[in-house]
Each structure stands twice: as structure tokens, then as C-alpha cells.
């Protein structure tokens, strides 16, 4: 078994700190507590070169933390970098190569304007589609159009994802947006890619999160507070998005979820809450369906009926998700794990999911290029 035994975050949003300080700050308290026990540092980051002109970010951050002689590496799998780092760290601990891994996810995106940021993020697209002006927001809009057409979902039910996530975010001290908003606010915000509007997309964010993972044998000597990373599975697909069968489902999400449930002998009903990759409102609904939490085409009704609210049958994104907590790309997968750790150790304050014993995170790379599903359990 592999455990998470500690976590840390910076506030998400616009930061005055440079990317090195930002990454180091998220891990500062962990390093204070466990400095001599850290065997390896993995830094999850996608775009330090493009946004900030830094390369070798892992070495720069370990120096800032005075972990100069601890081996380190950087993992990049675009928006799924964080969970990919967890997959790697967990595998190295399981293989017995290391006892502990400090994973730091970080991105600083505010140093360029929005159009340059969009250009940087769109570079994950296959050139044949990037050259056609395709963007992540436009793909989410195609998904929303297809979903509404196919299943008769109301426009309001999709926008309610944003209302719920902002409400949850207002209870999360690290969230970029700390204010609850109304359905009218969402539906009156400006259109980004028709039909989806500004408040239905994640913002551009600076931020960092960190977790410390430890082996089963080593963890008890370090901390009494432990969460078991039961299983983490990955599924991948083509970088050419037009090869997807349709826009109402994401194949890699389905496959990663099927595998994680199969390997843990669990079912969706055994999960108490989920952190999903809500880059846009519609993605939260489609991903929850694809993972088996709702029948296909019925996720929007569950949203409308409040089933995914904090007190609902399956709370989704108690942290506020990407839409409200923010989406510093390299940090997101680690922020999801840190939220699950916080929830399962009962430290989530006002946004605490009552009686939570098992959580699931889903981190997606690109637009269905890859998906990583992880199930965690309280010890």
C-alpha cells in the first residue's frame, strides 16, 4: 500500500511570487516536518518554459527548499501532469525503489495575456487541428451542443455546475474565486464559445499544491494521519480529437474508470465524493456519466436535482473544482489529491463531506487525450 501522509497548497489565483517560490511555498510545511525523510521529488508542470522562461524547474524548486541533494524530476502530461506524477510516484514506492516521494504541482500562467495563454495551452493539439483554430473552450462548446441536442438537457442545468462549484469554492480558502454566484450571473456572463459562457470555464491561474507519499512500511513512523492511494489507472487516446467517436462521451474517462473500479473491486456506489476535471461545466456532467455515477444522458438531471451538491447523494468537486478553485495546469492533479486527503482526514471545514471514507479523482489530459482515475480510502 502507498499512503498520502501530508499535503500543502498555495492560494490559487494571481500570485506575485515567481514559479520557483510558488512551488516551494506549497511544499514548505511538508519539508519542515519531513526534510530528512524525502527520497525523491517529482515536480508536475507543463509550461514553465512557455509562461515563465524557466527550464529544469524541479532542480530550481528543490534548491529553494534546500533539498539540493535529493533526486528530482519533472513530469509533463499537459493538464493530467499532476495525476501522472502520482501514478509514477506510487509505482516507484510500490516497486521498492524509494520509501517517500514529495510531489509538487505548479503552474504560473498570469505573466502573459489571455490570447497568448490560449495559444500556449492550444499547443497540446495535433498541428493538423491547431492550425484550424481549434481550442479547448471550442471543444467543450461542441460537447455542450451535442449533449443538449442528444439528451434534451436544459441550458440552465449545465450552467448550474458553475453555481455549485462557485458555492463550494467560497468555502475553500485556497480557491481562486471565493464568492458564490447565481444562475443569472452565469447565464449573463459573456459568451466564450457558443453556447458556453465565461463563468462556465476554468480561469487562468497561478498556484501550487504538494503531497507527500509514503510506503506502507515507512508511513507509520512518519505520521498517524494517512490516506491509502488504493489504485490509479490511466487510459490514453489519439491527439487528433476529430477521431473521437462522438462528443457526448469521453472514451478515456470511461476506460480509466472501468479499470480503477475493476482493480479495487469497488462500484460507484462505494465512493463518497469525487473531484472531477471540470475545465468547463459540461465536462463535469459528461465525466460523471462516463465514470458510471449516472446513466448516460441523465447527469444533467442529477445536477438539476442537487444530487451532486455537498449534501447530495454523490458530491462532486467539493473543492470548487477547476472552475472555482482554479486550474494552474501542472498543479491541478495534485490539488485534487490534496483535497481528497483533506476531506478524508476530516479537515475540510465548511465544505466537509460528512462521513467521507472513500474519494475518487479524475484528471484529464488535453481533451480526452488521456485520463487518470484514482481511488483513495481513509485508513
Amino acid at each position, binding site marked *: 500500500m502507498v499512503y498520502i501522509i501530508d499535503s500543502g497548497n498555495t492560494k490559487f489565483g494571481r500570485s506575485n511570487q515567481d514559479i520557483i517560490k510558488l512551488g516551494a511555498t506549497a511544499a514548505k510545511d511538508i519539508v519542515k516536518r519531513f526534510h530528512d525523510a524525502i527520497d525523491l521529488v517529482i515536480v508536475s508542470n507543463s509550461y514553465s518554459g512557455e509562461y515563465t522562461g524557466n527550464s529544469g524547474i524541479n532542480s530550481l524548486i528543490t534548491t529553494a527548499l534546500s533539498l539540493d541533494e535529493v533526486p528530482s524530476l519533472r513530469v509533463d502530461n499537459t493538464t493530467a501532469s499532476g495525476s501522472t506524477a502520482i501514478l509514477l510516484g506510487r509505482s516507484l514506492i510500490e516497486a521498492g525503489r524509494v520509501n517517500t516521494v514529495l510531489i509538487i504541482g505548479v503552474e504560473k500562467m498570469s505573466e502573459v495575456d489571455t490570447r497568448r495563454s490560449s495559444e500556449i495551452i492550444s499547443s497540446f493539439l495535433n498541428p493538423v*487541428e491547431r492550425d484550424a*483554430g481549434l481550442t479547448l473552450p471550442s471543444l467543450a462548446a*461542441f460537447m455542450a451542443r451535442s449533449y443538449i441536442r442528444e439528451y434534451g438537457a436544459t441550458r440552465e442545468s449545465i450552467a448550474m455546475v458553475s453555481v455549485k462549484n462557485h458555492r463550494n469554492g467560497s468555502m475553500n480558502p485556497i480557491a481562486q474565486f471565493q464568492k458564490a454566484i447565481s444562475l443569472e450571473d452565469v447565464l449573463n456572463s459573456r459568451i466564450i464559445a457558443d453556447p458556453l459562457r465565461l463563468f462556465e470555464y476554468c480561469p487562468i491561474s497561478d498556484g501550487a499544491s504538494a503531497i507527500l507519499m509514503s510506503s506502507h512500511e515507512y508511513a507509520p513512523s512518519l505520521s498517524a494521519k494517512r490516506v491509502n492511494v488504493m489504485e490509479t489507472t490511466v487510459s490514453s487516446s489519439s491527439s487528433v480529437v476529430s477521431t473521437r467517436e462522438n462528443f457526448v462521451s469521453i472514451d478515456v474517462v470511461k476506460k480509466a474508470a472501468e479499470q480503477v473500479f475493476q482493480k479495487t473491486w469497488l462500484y460507484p456506489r462505494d465512493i463518497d465524493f469525487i473531484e472531477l476535471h471540470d475545465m468547463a461545466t459540461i465536462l463535469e456532467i459528461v465525466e460523471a456519466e462516463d465514470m458510471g455515477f449516472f446513466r448516460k444522458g441523465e447527469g444533467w438531471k442529477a445536477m438539476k436535482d442537487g444530487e451532486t451538491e455537498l449534501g447530495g447523494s454523490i458530491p462532486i468537486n467539493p473543492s470548487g473544482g477547476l472552475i472555482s478553485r482554479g486550474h494552474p495546469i501542472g498543479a491541478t492533479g495534485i490539488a485534487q489529491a490534496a483535497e481528497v486527503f483533506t476531506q478524508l482526514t476530516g479537515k475540510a471545514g465548511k465544505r466537509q463531506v460528512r462521513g467521507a471514507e472513500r474519494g475518487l479523482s479524475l484528471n484529464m489530459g488535453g481533451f480526452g487525450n488521456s485520463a487518470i482515475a484514482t481511488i483513495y480510502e481513509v485508513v
Partner: protein
Amino acid sequence: MRLYICTKCGKKFVEERLFCPSCLSEDFSESSINGATVSDRVQLFATPAKFPESYYVLLLSNGELKIFCRSDTDIKEGMKVRLDMEDSQHRCR
């Protein structure tokens, strides 16, 4: 738009590859897709640098393949369009 056709299994694709995604053959012939039909469209009001500040992305189908293309004007579903390369960007009219 450039089209690759695997000479062994006949698989068609538009992206650069060293192996056929279906049979792993390394031999392709090249053709082009000159026209297709609009299946769906999205108007964008937030766009990447090096592109106009607003445009449409069209999802096209030629019966065998789906392709994305940019248009400066609204072209409705079911309409046929012509595909061109202009300033290294796929455009349709």
C-alpha cells in the same frame, strides 16, 4: 487538406504519422480533401494569439473522416465547403 492513404490496408488519415494506425505499414499514398459537409459549428469569442479575435470552428465530414476547419463566416450545418490552406492555417469557404 492533405490526406494519407495506407497502401496496405486503405486506412485514411490527415495527421502526420510514421506508421499506419490500423496495420502499422510504413507506406502511404498522398491525396487531398478539397470539400466536405458541415456537421456542427461553434462561434468563438476568445481565441489564441495569431488568430482573429472571433471566428467559427466547423466540424466537417466527408463521409469517411471528420475534420475541423476555421471559417470567418457562419456556414450552417448541411452546407458544403471548400478546404484551403492559407498562411499555414486550414480555412474553409
